[in-house]
């Protein structure tokens, strides 16, 4: 009995201390610990904030080899929410996202470069409004570890500024509103 207990403690210790190998994570959209927000200037006087409520994605991340990290995210564009039904309807229309024709936006990573200080640059192809362009997301590694319910979680945040006109969305909101910052807060649960 003593032996068994010792073995259990040892293996538990070993497991906890073991370097984390290439791991696959599912982005925790079920528990809504992940957010895709956008921020655009209103006339140059203030910020308008909105988010996409429905998206899903996965990533893999190996602490020993961060450059092998991969991320895939698919966004249901119609789920956009700027807290104003009339504006959301307008944003979904052909003046902007044209969700009837382009219901999905996608990000597929092509490379990740860790800076060694907990930040990095995630490059990939972003498809929006039927147009695919390479983008570079500035990433901060937030943390990782056991959660209180027996799982293992890892989280990042990222930001990228895009120009909607580059994706064919050229409705004129004024000179201060030509770019949009996308902010991502992503938590993954290890599979």
């Amino acid at each position, binding site marked *: 009995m003593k032996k068994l207990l010792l073995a259990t403690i040892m293996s538990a210790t070993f497991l906890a201390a073991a370097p984390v190998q290439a791991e696959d994570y599912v982005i925790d959209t079920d528990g809504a610990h992940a957010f895709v927000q956008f921020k655009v200037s209103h006339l140059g006087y203030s910020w308008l904030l909105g988010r996409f409520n429905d998206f899903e994605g996965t990533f893999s991340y190996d602490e020993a080899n961060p450059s092998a990290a991969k991320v895939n995210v698919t966004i249901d564009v*119609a789920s956009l929410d700027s*807290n*104003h*039904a*009339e504006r*959301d*309807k307008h944003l*979904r229309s052909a003046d902007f996202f044209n969700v009837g024709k382009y219901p999905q936006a996608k990000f597929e990573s092509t490379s990740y470069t860790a800076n060694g200080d907990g930040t990095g640059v995630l490059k990939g192809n972003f498809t929006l409004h039927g147009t695919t362009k390479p983008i570079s997301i500035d990433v901060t590694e937030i943390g990782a570890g056991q959660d209180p319910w027996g799982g293992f979680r890892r989280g990042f945040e990222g930001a990228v500024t895009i120009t909607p006109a580059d994706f064919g969305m050229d*409705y*004129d*909101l*004024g000179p201060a509103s030509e770019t949009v910052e996308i902010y991502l807060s992503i938590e993954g649960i290890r599979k």
Partner: protein
Amino acid sequence: MLKNSKRSYGWVAIIMHWLTAMMVFALFGLGYWMLTLGYYDAWYRLGPWWHKSFGMTLLLLTIVRLIWKLTQPRPTAIGKTFEQVGAKLGHALIYALLFITMISGYLISTADGRGISVFDWFEVPALITSIPQQEDIAGQVHWYAALSLVIIAIGHGLAGLRHHFIHKDETLKRMLRPLKD
């Protein structure tokens, strides 16, 4: 003269009818035009404000008008049986499309719980906010119902002119001013 008779409509029905006609076409034109405006146009915010204010006014007017219609004598229908049946169906369809258009419009703007301001005078509160994709579905319904309404209203007007110029009967005249019994 205010009330309907067997022969003719009274002033109350006549005025409500022509107010409705003017508002339907004005609202359709305004609604169509305001969607073409750019963000920096002065009317970008004014257009929807007038559209919603008059839309809610027309909704109230239509409710009053329907109550009036149902409690008043109905002027005797003119024309052959198929014309009378056609006219009755057409009128019912116009009333139905009026309500569908205005209620769907109301459901767009109130989908997030915001009320609709009527001339900044009072606010019509939001009642239904939980239909999935409410503003988008209501928007589609609003457009097709409004388009159908305008087309049928034009047909309704042409039918009135046909009565007046071809059949030379009193159908149009009794909607212009009350005729004495």
